[in-house]
């Protein structure tokens, strides 16, 4: 067969020599690991983008920023950021991060993981790290189910939701995450959907700047496993739902921000208080200990 001329021409103009433009976020991604594993329409990438923008604007020494994830689709975040990063076991990102932070207080420790990981299997660590006010930022991508393992129900699944393990509709009461975080002692609590990227980015910036246990819930589509069972076939359908039912209410009482299936999603900053951290309190007893 003869070589089609068009192709030769196309080759001739292939912009090999043209300077490769780098995306401002490239430096913070492990490009050699791309493409990532996430489905199209998944919200995790958007949450990661907001996190990276917040980091780039934070002025933090990026050599001192550490990302810790557990297991799940969201848990893969640790593997894509070009930062010191740890992909631990299911539910255990927070205690691992606690060890990092207490052993080297210079580190800025961020836990980035899923709802099942952080508050279902890892719920005990979540409430205790908040109670102790360990200086860390926890970003939780809440897609109301276990994405990675094929869409099972977890502690955030709304009542009535159909998942692979609630074929007749979920009949367990779910956690309201901002309320859980606030009641456990978090000093910063915010919730945004991945539709509200600017506000989400700002919330992550604020959380990073906060001393103590800061928590950002990111409400996020999982079209593959959750959306498609709830009349949201694509990620876009879910974003439309966020647009229609998202209500911004800063300062709302965390008790009032439950999410019901297909219902309103109250977003905003709910808690922003000052409290001594675990390390502050611990430093207070050192003199006493040395005097002994």
């Amino acid at each position, binding site marked *: 067969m003869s070589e089609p001329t068009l192709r030769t021409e196309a080759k001739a103009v292939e912009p090999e020599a043209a300077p490769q433009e780098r995306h401002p976020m490239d430096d913070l991604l492990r490009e050699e690991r791309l493409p990532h594993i996430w489905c199209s329409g998944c919200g995790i990438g958007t949450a990661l983008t907001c996190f990276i923008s917040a980091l780039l604007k934070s002025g933090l020494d990026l*050599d*001192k920023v550490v990302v810790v994830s557990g297991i799940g689709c969201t848990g893969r975040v640790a593997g894509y950021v070009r930062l*010191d990063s740890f992909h631990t076991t299911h539910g255990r990102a*927070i205690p691992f991060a*606690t*060890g990092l932070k207490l052993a080297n207080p210079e*580190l800025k420790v961020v836990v980035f993981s899923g709802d099942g990981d952080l508050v279902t299997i890892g719920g*005990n660590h979540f409430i205790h790290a908040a109670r102790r006010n360990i200086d860390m930022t926890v970003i939780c991508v809440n897609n109301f189910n276990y994405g990675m393992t094929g869409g099972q129900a977890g502690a955030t699944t709304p009542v009535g939701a159909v998942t692979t393990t609630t074929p007749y509709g979920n009949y367990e009461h779910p956690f309201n995450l901002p309320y859980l975080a606030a009641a456990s002692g978090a000093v910063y609590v915010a919730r945004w959907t991945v539709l509200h990227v600017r506000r989400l980015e700002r919330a992550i910036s604020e959380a990073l700047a906060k001393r103590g246990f800061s928590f950002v819930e990111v409400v996020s589509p999982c079209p593959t496993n959750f959306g498609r069972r709830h009349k949201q076939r694509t990620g876009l359908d879910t974003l439309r739902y966020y647009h229609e039912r998202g209500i911004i209410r800063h300062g709302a009482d965390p008790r009032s921000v439950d999410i019901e299936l297909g219902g309103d999603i109250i977003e905003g900053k709910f808690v922003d208080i000052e409290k001594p951290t675990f390390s502050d309190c611990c430093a207070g007893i050192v003199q006493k200990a040395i005097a002994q």
Partner: protein
Amino acid sequence: MSSEKGVLSGSFFMQGDVACAEGAITAGCRFFAGYPITPATEIAQRMAARMPQIGGTYIQMEDELGSMNAVLGASWAGVKAMTATSGPGFSLMMENLGLGIMTETPCVLVNVQRGGPSTGLPTLVAQGDMMQARWGAHGPYEIIALAPSSPQELFDLTIRAFNLSERFRTPVLIMTDAEVGHMTERVVIPPPEEVTIVPRRKPRIPPGDGYQPYVADDDLVPPMAVAGEGYRIHVTGLTHDERGYPATSDDSAQWKLIQRLVNKIRLYKDEIIEVEELYLEDAEVVVVSYGIAARAAMWPIELAHREGIKVGMLRLITVWPFAEEKIRALAERARAFVVPEINWGQIALEVERCAAGRVPVYLVPHPGGDIHKPEQVLAAIRRAVA
């Protein structure tokens, strides 16, 4: 921070658990995470008192899953770290002991064994977790476990455990028990300059020059960069390549990684295995034991000598990796092995494996709650020569 209280050199009348904590401090441990459990609690209590004095961190976690992970996190922040527990907590630590093995995280895990299964005998001795120590985390791996017989040895072996964990980049287990942990005896803490400390092996290339976290040296152990040093490492419990990146689409990375994780210990086991040999030159019967059971077997061995029986003792100070060659060699010249252990046959199975049918192996079992009565061990020795 005042470091003068770091190594408490001197001679003390000291409890085993306390000696363990002091051994850790002497080795440079500056992070302890734990959860109270008898008979290991005194280690946590000592650490709670001592860590703030020497610029270290003590944290009581919400459970043993948290404790094990906090220890791994601390090690990745560059600090020597330890946790201590007993049976029920040891069970909870297994998954993340595996994470430590897979990610090659130096740290020390102490199990002050008590009677089991389940809550069992909270205050009383047992040695029932020896096989759990070997195989308790899922998957194929090698492990290092040490078994002290006295408070002094608990002190010494805790230092050794830290050194081995840094040398081989792996969690090291101290498998002690309620008797040794709660026994109070003379413990000598040497001056710091007399203590050998193995430092962490650090990357020899600066950040940005292509350091890969899992490229090993010739001895199969990779130098370890930690968080905050600028290397931007990625560490995962998934099967990974030399960059530390997940490699789960075929089995080639798994072959490479598991062979290295196993061989970095197996090929260097002579450096790790430590035993004590007593009266073995002409022994017809060899008692193989460890920890408190070995100590309790000394009197029946004495009694057997009075009866003219040629019996000696092989005391396993390192239990894992197992002293296979030693046992095989003894199987060539002894008439029988007697294995007293405070469980229903764990290390006895290993002895049997190495004896390979050449000579009989007599287990002296005990369910836990006490040490063997001298006559139980003596009866087994007599039977072995009958």
